[in-house]
Structures are given as C-alpha cells and as structure tokens.
C-alpha cells in the first residue's frame, strides 16, 4: 500500500520510492530519512485530503497526497 493510505496513529515500514520520481528527489527523500526498511508513524491526517503529518526517525514532516502516493509502505 502507499503512505497515503496509512491510517492515523498507525506505523509502517518504507518499502520503495516510486520510480516515477526523479533521481534527485529520491536522493533527497533518502537523506530526509525515507530509506527502505525505515519505520514511520502517521501522526495526523488533515481535513479534505490535505497534507499528512508523519514522524520518521527524529523528524516530523508534512507531505501532500501527490508525494505520499509515491511512497510504498507495509
């Protein structure tokens, strides 16, 4: 499933960054902590399909649907 489908308060592991993203972006996501095998928690979902808030390692990020759909988790 994708990160976008992760319900609130649930944890998941990153499995893959979608290949449709540019390699520069994937490198950046890696540097931000989105490495396959990494555990993340969905902290919050905002109304009207707004951005998600997730915690991964020592950081909290907010990201929008477009990006969350490109990150596979399990």
């Amino acid at each position, binding site marked *: 499933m994708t990160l976008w489908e992760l319900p609130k308060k649930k944890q998941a592991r990153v499995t893959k960054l979608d290949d449709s993203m540019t390699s*520069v972006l994937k490198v*950046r996501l890696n*540097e931000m*902590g989105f490495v396959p095998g990494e555990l993340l928690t969905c902290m*919050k979902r905002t109304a009207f399909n707004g951005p998600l808030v997730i*915690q991964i*390692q*020592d950081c*909290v990020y907010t990201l*929008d649907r477009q990006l969350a759909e490109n990150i596979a988790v399990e």
Partner: protein
Amino acid sequence: MKRIILVGKPNSGKSLLFNQLTGLKQKVANFPGVTVELKSGKFEEFELVDFPGTYSLSSISTDESIAINQLHAAMSDKNTCLVVCNLDATKLERSLVFALQVQQLAKQHNKSVVFSLNMVDQLTRFSHQIDTKKLSSQLGSPVYALSAKSLEGLSEFSSALKEHAKHPETAVIQCPTIDNDQSARAVKFAKELAKEHAINQDIALKQQNSLDSFLLNSVAGGIVFLAIMFFLFQSIFTWAAPLMDAVESGVGFLGELVASQLSVGVVNDFLQDAIFGGFGAFLVFVPQIMVLTLIIGLLEDSGYLARAALICHKPLSLFGLSGRSFIPYLSGHACAIPAILAARTIESPRKRLITMVTVPLMSCSARLPVYALLIAVFVPNESYFYGWVNLQGAVFFCLYFGGICMALIVSKLLNTWMTAKDAATDLPFILELPSYRLPHWRPLMYKTINSGKQFIYRAAPIIFMVSVIIWVLGYFPNNGDLGSSYLAYLGKVLDPIFAPMGLDWRYTVAILVSFLAREVFVGVLGTLFSIENADENINGLAQQIQADGLTLASAIALLIFYVIALQCVATVATLKGETSKNRYSWGIFVFYGVLAYCLSMTVYFIIT
C-alpha cells in the same frame, strides 16, 4: 581577513549561534561571484559568515542551488580558514547526514572542519548526554557540545574555535575520502552514529507532537490560526501607531527647526515641501515594516510558520499555489520586495512564479497612506457593537481582503493558462515541522532593525528624486504658483486619462507619479493642494479634498485602482531580478495597470 564559514541544517539554531558569536557588528558578506546576500560578522580577528541552512549538498530547488553554489565558492576561496558545521543535538541523525557531506566537501578542498553540537540544553532536560569525545573520534573532526540559548559550553567553544582558526592544522579531517555515492554513505553512517549517541526520538518529540495535535486540529487549529492572523494585522496598526507618530513628529520638528534657521525663499520652500514634506512622509512607514518583520520573525523562530504553511496548503492548492506561498503572501503585507525574495523557498518553479507575480496584490504598507487619506475623506469615523467594529477599520479590512481575493483569482487564471508541460517539473510538497522553541530576542532584534534599514536604503533614492522633480515642476516658473506651473500644464495634457472617472488634473498627476512608488500619491496631492506638510496633516488634506468636491464614486474607483495597480518601480525591478524575464516584470506591471484601470472605470460607471 581570514574567514570562518558557518553551515548547518535549517532550524538547527545556526542563526542564534551566529549572533552569540558575533554580537552587534553584522554586515553583508561579499564572496567573488556570489549573487545572494550572506550575513557576516566579526568573531575575534576573523570574519564569520553565516550560510543559508540546507538539508543536502545536492539541490532540488533554486534557493538551495544558489546556497550550495555559494558554499562551493567559499570552500575553494583561499581566505576561508575553517568550516563550522552546526548540529542539532535533538535531531542528530538528520544533522549528520548533511554534516558528513560537508566534511567530504571540505576534505576535497583541504579545509578543516569543527562541529558545534547545539541545543544540548534540550538533552539535559531528559538527562541524556552525548559522548563528544567518542563522537569526535568516530567523525574524525572535533565536536563541541554547547547551547546557544542557555550559553552552556559556549565560552569553551569560542576559545577552541579561535585556536582552530589560528591553527587549522589542529582540526584536519581524520576520516577516509569517499569518492562515489557520498549521499548514500552519509545516510548509512549517520544512522549508525545516531543509534549509538542520539536521544530516543519519541521522548524528544513528545511535547511537539502533543502541541501539534492541538494546533493542527481541524477546528481548534483553524481558530488559533485565524486568531494569530487577526492579532498580526491588528498589531500592524496598534503597535506601530505610536512609533509612526514619533517618526512623524520627529520629521516635523526637524522641519520647523530648519525653517526657523533659514530665511523665506526658494531654498526654504524646497526643504519644507520636497525634503520634509515628500521624503519625510515615507519614513513614517518604516515602523510598520519593522513591526511586521518582528511578528513574522517570532512566528518563524517559534516554529509556527511551518504549521501555518501546512494549514494553508490545501486551500491554497485550489488556486495553484503551495502552502509555502503563505509566507510570501504574509510578508507582502509589509512590502512586496522581501516577500518576492521569500518565494525562493517554494518547491515548485511554477508555484513560485505564480506566487511572485501575485504578491504585489497584497496591500503593502505603501498603500496605507493612500487608503487612510481616502477613507478619512469618505468614511465617517463611527463605531458599532460597543466599539468592537469601527467603520473605517472595516473598510480597511475590505481593501486588504479585496487584494487577497484578487491575488487568488489571478493565481487561478495563471494556473489554468500555464501548460501541463510545466507541471511535470513540479516538485511535491514536503516540509519539516521543526520543534516548537521559545524564540531568543537577539536574532529577532537584528532582523527587525535590518528590515527597516533595508527598506530605507532601497526606497530612499527614488522617493527623494520624485519629491525633488515634482516640487521643481510644481514650483516653477512662477515661484510657487501651482496653477501656472509646468506641472499644471503637463497635467492638463494628461487629464483625459482619468477624467472619465471624475478626477481632475491634480489627481491625474498624483496617480501617474505614483507609478514610481505609490506612497508619493499623498505627498504629491498635498503639495498640489498647496498645504505645507501634507502627510503630517492628513485630516487637513482630507478636509480640503472634501471641500474640493471629490465624489464618492470617484473615491471608490480610486481605491480600487490602488488595490490592484502595481505602482512600485522597486517591485518591478525585484521581479525582473528574480524571474530574469521582462514578461513577468514589465508585463505584469502593464497587466495590473490595465486591470486596475478597467475595473475601477467599470465600478465608477456602475455607481453613477
């Protein structure tokens, strides 16, 4: 002078450390071939240069690539003697990913690196300690634990820094050179180190997450957001008002002082009308810009601005904008120029462009005197609901709101016009939510003072010139007789442009001149209505205009014109600098001018 450069991830407390090390004396640094301003200050006998915070050495956006190019330039500069890389002890892993890349870059250029492990006061709260000796040997560069806020470890750090800067060989990097795939190695190595040294994330983030569950709540968070925005706009008026009065009386006092020293004549008239009347009037807005900068700085340093961007992301994306557009829009209410520069942080080039182009529709503080004058002429100063709602204030609010709506409409249109091809290069929205922190007064104070200074430096020359030229044209050839001056002659030729709106030549001149900078409108009208010190005495001018018989319809049309038109040469120049295309600078200037003209004309005809 030898240079020390300071780098680090955003929100690692780098600005505060910089301020603590350098104190008051700060200026803009100059590196050969570098285009963007860097802060620089004196630390002992060295120059300390603060680099913009970045997450990585490979860039994904314009502002990052500028910052990274600057870093490369500085690394190869022979005057650079030492690199200080700031780490956030509460976010060790993320800080190290960047730090390890910086270390490799420094090694390539034979520079020495020192790490400052900042925010250790946050760790002591959870009685966690990092073994800096061990970390130093693992990293191969000296690490110093300190807190820029509570000052623990700071004096040790600064004396060590001085020694290392004098003898860079004491901090030579003791780690192997990595040639390929630095980023992946940095990610991996940072993880190992963090596992050993870092504090448990859930403990460190607990407070932040519980605050967020309130502040990002759809209902409560929305209310807090609106309350903060309301407070912000309120304070632009209430906090700045006494300061503005002070500046105003200061200028008035100086004017009188000078007048009493000089005999009556052309020179005296010139100083009074052009210098104190025209030029002095614009100094009055400086406090407003400073107050707005202060509040935005407070929101930024406390970590709230990122949350505001998150809250606004969805609504703004309906208009083709990003959550990050919120920050330029907000600061656009003080001045469009810093706001256009702030758009650099927007991830996608297309959204950045739309934001920059629509920022000038925000009611910047230069529009205030125009609004204030026309409102004083036509709107009675009445209060309703036990003084909670003031009629004049409500009209002000409508004008601000009108500007924002217009910006959203234009954004939507631009978004539809731009082709799908641009959308492909769009970067997605991802933003770190930094921990909430109590801001420190020092960086805030410097930021506030600098914003005032920069506004003066930028706007002063043009306002000065306009004041002088208008005065000369309006004063001669018949020493002070406006009706027969060159300006009157010119104005009557141009009058047909605005005559259909019920405005005579004096307004025409004031409007046309204010295409250079809109704040001169009041000054020009004041001079033309032959009142001395027009701006200091708006009620006087307002009464004159009332007596002169400006109609309500004309005044409303004029207000609408000022809400929309891009009357500011400095903004056009900034747009040109940022977009490097005439289409987006002069094109937008013409577009908003025509739009303003058509709309105000339409409204005028509907009313009459």
